């Protein structure tokens, strides 16, 4: 198999020794079918054991190996070296604080995710004896796309509004809220609305659309947010017309 030498410029940062991050370059012999993660693993296994980064499944389902690759947020297990120039610049995901090397702190995202109540809120609890919850394929189709999110946070790294205002609930969390709002088994929309329809929620989004561009599973958070804006606007005016309605 053909081997090709690629220079990886990796942003390094060890809080115990470094004032600020700096690039370090590694020359890596790459196989033709390698992804960037394979090249980074080569650095770790052969050239420099001190490099820190996250990865797990190597097949684009676990969402842990996101990195900025030549400035674009990507899953490094799905970024093929054959599509890249001979110098590949690798940085930790943008818009998150750097813990160490390519590892970022995602606590803020986790909090945002929890804030939109990303779980089914049923009308009433149903005992197992009462049988299955029934949902038609058409009802499933309404939200299925938004279930494909793997929480890789590439969309947060791509979002300029999150970059400028960390209060923004952000693409993945809002898309997930939309997913549950559209679910025929769920009645939690009102409970989510206080977070979703706040200034820091959908209204912080200016529809740049970069989140949907970088999504590895075509979830389209930008579309989800636009749909939520329309639904929330309808809600808002309905609320004005019927102020006594329980909101």
């Amino acid at each position, binding site marked *: 198999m053909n081997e090709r030498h690629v220079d990886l410029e990796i942003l390094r*940062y060890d*809080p*115990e020794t470094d004032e*600020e*991050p700096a690039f370090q370059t590694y020359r890596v012999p790459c196989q033709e079918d390698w992804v960037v993660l394979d090249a980074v693993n080569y650095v770790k296994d052969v050239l420099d054991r001190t490099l820190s980064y996250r990865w797990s499944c190597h097949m684009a389902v676990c969402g842990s190996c996101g990195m900025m690759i030549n*400035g*674009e947020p990507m899953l490094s297990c799905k970024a093929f070296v054959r599509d890249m120039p001979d110098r590949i610049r690798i940085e930790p995901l*943008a*818009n998150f*604080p*750097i*813990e160490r090397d390519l590892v970022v*702190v995602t606590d803020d995202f986790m909090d945002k995710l929890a804030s939109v109540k990303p779980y089914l809120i049923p009308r009433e609890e149903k005992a197992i004896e009462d049988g299955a919850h029934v949902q038609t*394929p*058409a009802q499933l*189709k*309404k939200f299925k796309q938004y279930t494909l999110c793997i929480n890789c946070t590439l969309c947060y790294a791509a979002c*300029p509004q999150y*970059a*400028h205002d960390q209060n923004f609930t952000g693409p993945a969390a809002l898309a997930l809220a939309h997913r549950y709002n559209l679910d025929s088994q769920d009645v939690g929309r009102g409970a989510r609305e206080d977070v979703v329809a706040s200034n820091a929620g959908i209204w912080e989004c*200016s*529809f*740049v*659309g*970069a989140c*949907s*561009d970088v999504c590895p599973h075509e979830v*389209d958070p*930008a*579309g989800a947010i*636009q*749909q939520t*804006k*329309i639904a929330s606007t309808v809600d808002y005016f309905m609320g004005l017309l019927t102020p006594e309605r329980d909101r």
Partner: protein
Amino acid sequence: MSRRPYRRAVSTTSWWLARPRYIRYMAREVSCVFIGAYTAVVVVGLVRLSDGAAAWGAFLESLQAPVSVAFHLLALAFALYHTVTWFNVTPKAMPVQFGEAQLPGGVIIGAHYTGWALVSALVLFLAGV
């Protein structure tokens, strides 16, 4: 443990130069300046129209000035960019589902362009083309 998470600075003024996608976004947003300015021209025109035939004639004459033509050319380019970017995202904002089938985005976009062509043709027809 001596954690010290490092936060990289993001420019608040020039961030959008970093990626082509951001530049396209800003071009779309800046279209509002031209749509707003053109709307102002229309308002001036309405005022001149209400001032009478002479004022309206003077207004029409001022539109022939090279600077006016240049402005309108630029405004047209941005207005067209607004139209294209606005229509192309309609399937995202307003998806249409029949049963299990999703109406293809191209159909929704195509319907908008068709409507646009009809409206434009109607206006041109009324203008005497």
